[in-house]
């Protein structure tokens, strides 16, 4: 797959785990953590954000081996879903997103990424259902809005049209 396509998909998938990887969540539990709590997971997310899906998968799988809690596991699987969407291995992506949602049915990134996978598979009804979930959980997310636009363009394409109408107006009606 071309690097360009990977980068385009990378811009669309929702990659999470920075909070977890940097240990902020641990800090919220009154632990002092300097640096990533799970370096592989963190580096995997960084690789994904840089557009390197293969490396992202490799590191995230490594990170999942050392996952110390449910949140790390969910984040890792969510990022694997995103990775496989980027790699266009959509069945694998659906599997990981499904695993995330089985453990947390309010994970908007997984719904969004699964909608994107469905969209690429031209399963518009499934994509719509997942997208509605993502929109209800994260109504202001730019990623969700982008996938909504993609779904609309795929399922309900429109052509922009502009009509220009010129009319003279007396100057004394303009108030200036």
């Amino acid at each position, binding site marked *: 797959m071309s690097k360009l396509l990977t980068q385009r998909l990378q811009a669309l998938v929702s990659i999470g785990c920075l909070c977890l990887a940097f240990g902020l969540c641990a800090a919220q539990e009154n632990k002092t953590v300097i640096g990533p709590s799970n370096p592989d997971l963190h580096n995997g997310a960084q690789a994904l954000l840089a557009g390197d899906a293969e490396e992202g998968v490799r590191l995230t799988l490594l990170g999942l081996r050392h996952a110390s809690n449910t949140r790390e596991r969910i984040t890792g699987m969510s990022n694997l879903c995103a990775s496989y969407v980027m790699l266009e291995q959509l069945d694998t992506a659906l599997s990981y997103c499904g695993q995330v949602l089985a453990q947390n049915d309010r994970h908007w990134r997984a719904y969004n990424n699964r909608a994107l996978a469905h969209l690429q598979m031209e399963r518009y009804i499934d994509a719509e259902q997942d997208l509605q979930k993502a929109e209800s959980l994260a109504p202001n997310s730019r990623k969700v*809005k982008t996938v909504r636009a993609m779904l609309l363009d795929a399922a309900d*394409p429109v052509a*922009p*049209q*502009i*009509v*220009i109408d010129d009319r*003279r107006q007396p100057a004394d009606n303009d108030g200036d």
Partner: protein
Amino acid sequence: MMAIRAASTIALLVAATLSVADDTANVSASPDDTGERMPLHTVVPKYPEAARQARVEGEVEVCFNVDRRGRTRRVAVRRSSNRAFEKPAKKAVRASTYRPLAEGRELSGIKTCRTFRFFLSPVVIETP
């Protein structure tokens, strides 16, 4: 005044040079009416991509003066259904021109208003 008002309501189809800023937008135009100042170069605004993606349609009326050389002046939005369309509409008007005023003729002081209707039509895709 009545004559002006009556003239103002008559829309004549006058051939104008259309400059399409957005290749993807289909455009239809019904240029100026009285014939006093003929559009010379009509620039069509670009449909804002965010509005297209969100399936937002709208209408903007922009009013302006035309100077002796045919350039648009004092461009202002008079009416708008959505702010997203105001900037492209004003930009298009500023880039548009009219035929210069003939020697010995006076500027009328009549403001020209141009309405832009931005809408989205369904695309019909044929499957083989």
